[in-house]
């Protein structure tokens, strides 16, 4: 019985007499955000393609299409860079779903769900971690742009405002991929299906070329695509000519996505896992 009596002493020693008040929604979300950062700390390679892909796209598009589309690579870069920023964040938001899908298969979610915490905290916290990805990737694009000759007329203010818009948009868009992450079986399936969503969302837009030369139908589609308005808002922010309508769409879209896909994600999270 000596084993048992030392076990008793052990348990006595770790008993918590004063239960702390449960953590609030913000504290819980921040804690899960910290968890997301720790994951990046242990697997820094996962940041590699997030950071390298945008460099590739910026350099490639500028030198491939610049001369043909805008007469010079310098002029084209001035048009393209805000678009590449949007494309980068939209592409990066896929990771929300892919990472979540792999994560959910772990037993630790059982523990999270049996804790008296704000239920959406694990999902929202993970998306806060994604903000680091968006910001990192966006800053790389801006840096490469500056090296290649891009000049934002509004300077640092324009860049900062763009970053805020990009992060809000990425957060809202992330809910779509969170839903896919909850619905599908494997991270690979999430990746595949997400690209099917992303391709039209990025290419049928004003990211790469002025839609004025496109057929009417495509012009209409581009005008309906919220990504186009995000790009217009960023272009406006960079040169100091913000269009209220585009800015509005760029902000309302993520809010609506959060309301619809966010709520759907919560339902799926509770039902399936």
């Amino acid at each position: 019985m000596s084993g048992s009596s030392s076990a008793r002493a052990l348990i006595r020693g770790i008993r918590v007499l004063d239960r702390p008040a449960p953590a609030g929604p913000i504290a819980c979300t921040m804690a899960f955000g910290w968890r997301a950062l720790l994951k990046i700390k242990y697997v820094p390679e996962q940041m590699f393609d997030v950071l390298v892909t945008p460099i590739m796209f910026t350099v490639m598009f500028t030198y491939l299409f610049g001369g043909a589309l805008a007469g010079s690579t310098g002029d084209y870069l001035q048009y393209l860079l805000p678009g590449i920023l949007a494309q980068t964040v939209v592409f990066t938001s896929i990771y929300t779903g892919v990472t979540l899908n792999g994560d959910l298969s772990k037993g630790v979610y059982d523990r999270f769900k049996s804790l008296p915490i704000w239920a959406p905290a694990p999902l929202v916290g993970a998306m806060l971690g994604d903000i680091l990805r968006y910001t990192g990737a966006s800053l790389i694009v801006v840096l490469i742009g500056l090296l290649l000759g891009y000049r934002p007329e509004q300077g640092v203010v324009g860049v900062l405002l763009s970053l805020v818009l990009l992060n809000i948009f990425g957060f809202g868009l992330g809910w779509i991929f969170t839903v896919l992450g909850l619905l599908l079986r494997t991270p690979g399936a999430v990746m595949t299906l997400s690209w099917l969503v992303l391709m039209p969302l990025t290419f049928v837009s004003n990211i790469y070329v002025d839609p004025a030369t496109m057929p009417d139908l495509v012009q209409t589609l581009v005008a309906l695509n919220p990504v186009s308005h995000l790009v217009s808002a960023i272009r406006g922010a960079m040169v100091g000519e913000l269009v209220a309508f585009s800015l509005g769409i760029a902000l309302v879209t993520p809010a609506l996505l959060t309301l619809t896909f966010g709520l759907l994600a919560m339902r799926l999270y509770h039902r399936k896992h």
Partner: protein
Amino acid sequence: MDSTPDFAIETRGLRKAFGSTLAVRGIDLQVKRGSVYGLLGPNGAGKTTTVRMLSTLLPPSGGEARILGHDLVHQAEQVRARISLTGQFASVDEDLSGRENLTLLARLQGFSWLGGRVRADTLLKAFDLQDAARRQVKTYSGGMRRRLDIAASLIVTPDLLFLDEPTTGLDPRSRNQVWDIVRGLVDDGTTVLLTTQYLEEADQLAERIAVIDQGAVIAEGTSRELKASIGSNVLHLQLNDPTQREQAQLILAGHLDSLVHLEADPASLTVQLSDSSEATRALAELPQAGIGLSSFSMGQPSLDEVFLALTGHTVSPQKDPEEAPQ
């Protein structure tokens, strides 16, 4: 004190259906506060599903349950504040270090960053994990992982702890450590509901045991009661010559009013005696027929034998999709 019910868990007709399959088909349980209660059954019996319902992870399809006086469905939040769950598969994050796991969970339960870290270190030391504190959990051995998992359930001392197959896959030394921890917890006033497919584990730890098979409780009581319910005594016989076993079985079944089982060992038989005086008769009959005994012993039936008598089959591992997570 708020109204303290006598039972930590009380369920009536608790059911869970997955599509058209009934994983749990009406379970009634009464688990006294401060006790260890064992759910014993083979893989796929519905143990994990029951624990997942009782720990608010799965909504029941029917029936009622009160946990520590709170309604399981309508007061899930109050229930969660007072229970902890250590799941069948490690319910810690393998990518994080032990210390980060505990700090995160402490933070989620209201500790400050600093307080959470202190709490994590206290637990790591108590569970002999301080040397591995900064290593990723995926590098831990099975026993270390289990200890961390249990430590994670004790960040805030729970009133009720669910342990789903806490020693499955552990070596004997780690298993004994877990058993000691469970005993310590119960001495300290925590109620423990544990599931196990090891009869010895239920026998060692649990005050009362519910035997579960195919989603239903088929027997309930203390281990002594369960053993008594299938006959007070068991006579184990070991023959000199295995080829005489069938003959011995016939003789015993013919002369005694008792059940005779053939054991896995080809030279041995077990007789469930309805009356212990039958033992002497049995021992007298066999030598008369020329059957030599190398040894015999009297004893209470093992829970293995209890299970066999109750279900008609032994505790054999069989995979059931319902027992898997999600």
